[in-house]
């Protein structure tokens, strides 16, 4: 189903931690179409400043509702924090390509950094509802204990949750990618082969995760962020550099090798980590 403009009533907009909010939106049409990993473009203001819509991943998909989890990052999200139940807001969606759960997966590893947890919560929810995969582990990292505390609000999850904080205030002291790497090194290669790996977080984290996946030959689906104007694929503003597929690449005189710019909003936000070309590589 192609995206539409939806007008949705806010059911709740709860402050669940310092700067973190969960907002539930009533929109049966959009809910019916939505899949984990997809996102919406929310209009945050009637004024021309802030001008552009803001992208938010779905963190939950109900029968008649969708939910987002957001963190105050600037003016748009500050405005959103003041929204009240019953208010009508509008978004374009559902947008983008979601996650694909490999049919052979016996286990799922989810690696999330900060607010990157949002789309992965929808993924977890979907896996749990379908009950086809027995084993899900979430590796969740943040700067401080407060960052990782948001997940408490989404319990009970049947998934096992491992946390990491940069300041050591909760769980593993360090980066979530290191925590994940530790874990991986204790797994048998054969088990890893049957594991689906999904990640979302800041670019630095996505990059390391992609490298880990590459080194261990794991298929890993990464949900990326990017500055977006249209969110629907028409402005070409949100591209990332990817490997050339189907010989349709393009070569720039200044840069060696063939590659392609692909749209995070349309071909993504979820990419196979092997497709991505990180600058400097």
């Amino acid at each position, binding site marked *: 189903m192609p*995206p539409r403009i939806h007008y949705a009533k806010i059911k709740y907009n709860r402050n669940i931690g310092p700067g973190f909010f969960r907002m539930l939106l009533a929109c049966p049409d959009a809910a019916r179409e939505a899949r984990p990993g997809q996102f919406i473009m929310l209009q945050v203001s009637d004024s021309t400043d802030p001008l552009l819509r803001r992208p938010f991943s779905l963190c939950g998909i109900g029968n008649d509702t969708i939910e987002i989890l957001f963190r105050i990052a600037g003016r748009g999200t500050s405005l959103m924090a003041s929204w009240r139940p019953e208010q009508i807001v509008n978004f374009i969606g559902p947008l983008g390509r979601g996650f694909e759960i490999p049919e052979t997966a016996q286990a799922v590893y989810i690696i999330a950094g900060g607010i990157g947890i949002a789309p992965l919560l929808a993924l977890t929810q979907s896996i749990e509802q379908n009950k086809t995969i027995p084993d899900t582990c979430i590796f969740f990292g943040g700067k401080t204990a407060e960052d990782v505390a948001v997940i408490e609000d989404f319990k009970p999850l049947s998934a096992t949750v491992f946390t990491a904080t940069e300041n050591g205030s909760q769980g593993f002291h360090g980066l979530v990618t290191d925590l994940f790497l530790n874990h991986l090194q204790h797994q048998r290669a054969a088990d890893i082969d049957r594991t689906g790996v999904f990640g979302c977080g800041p670019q630095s984290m996505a990059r390391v995760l992609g490298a880990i996946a590459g080194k261990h030959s794991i298929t890993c689906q990464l949900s990326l962020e990017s500055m977006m104007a249209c969110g629907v694929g028409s402005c070409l503003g949100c*591209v990332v550099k990817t490997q050339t597929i189907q010989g349709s690449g393009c070569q720039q005189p200044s840069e060696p090798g063939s590659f392609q710019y692909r749209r995070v909003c349309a071909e993504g936000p979820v990419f196979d980590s092997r497709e991505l070309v990180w600058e400097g590589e």
Partner: protein
Amino acid sequence: MDQRAPQSDIDLSVTIAGIVLKNPVMLASGTWGYGEEISSLLDLSQLGAVITKGISLQPSCGNPPPRIVETPSGMLNAIGLQNVGFAEFVEKKLPFLRQFHIPVIVNFFGKTAGEYTELGKRLSAVEGIAGLEVNISCPNIKEGGIFFGTEPARAHELISAVRKATSLPLIVKLSPNVTDIARIARSVEEAGADALSLTNTFTGMVVDVETCAPVLAHSTGGLSGPAIRPLSLRMVWETVNAVSIPVIGIGGIMEAADALQYLITGARAVQIGTALFIRPDAPLRIIEGIEAYLRHKGCSTLQEIIGCLKVK
């Protein structure tokens, strides 16, 4: 979709460079791709015309990301004219657009004058193209583009050559990054252009104070959106006073009143760009709003208000 324009006794039609538009509202180049993506959000068949994303002879990758950044009431873009190229456009994109039965105007550019004329010639041989919009004003590529758009003599030479290469209606899109828009406009008119589109984006920059680097990988980008509206409108005014070919107004149009400012000032039609990102259906609201305005003013044709500006 309940997006049909109301049947009406008010005549919104205009003719530009021989192209008949049922209303003066077009989509601006580069802000709606080639239509596939926006078509579920906006009924293209209601529009006056569409101007496609700028194409070049060969496909082009465009600039590295980040390519866009928001600014107060505007945004900078440095897409760098990424596009599918002539062949794929004709084969895959144009057929999709033809189904809406509205004029399809193709925006194009080249790196050299030779590329411009060659592409102009090839496009003229393609069926289903109502007219051409030559972009001599894109600030985001090094060669071509703005090089031709800032010096009257160079613009004259280029447009004369393109004029010879095509018999299609020829619209020239001007850069606003100039001292005297009227001079460029006159030289392009003399070179045989049938109409002018203005403006393209204004060159700007944003710096990330954390990293101490420009936000855009290309360093600078083109400013579009409401922020530029008063600037583009002033240029349209100077241009309609300087030339006798029709002018199409572009820049920061979000609603009907904005479009009306351009029409009253003398633009014969308008293009909607950045507004599509915020309200993909903005063009339909603008068409309705123009019609409501004419009714309120007791006019039965759009012609009555075009250029009606009263200046002391």
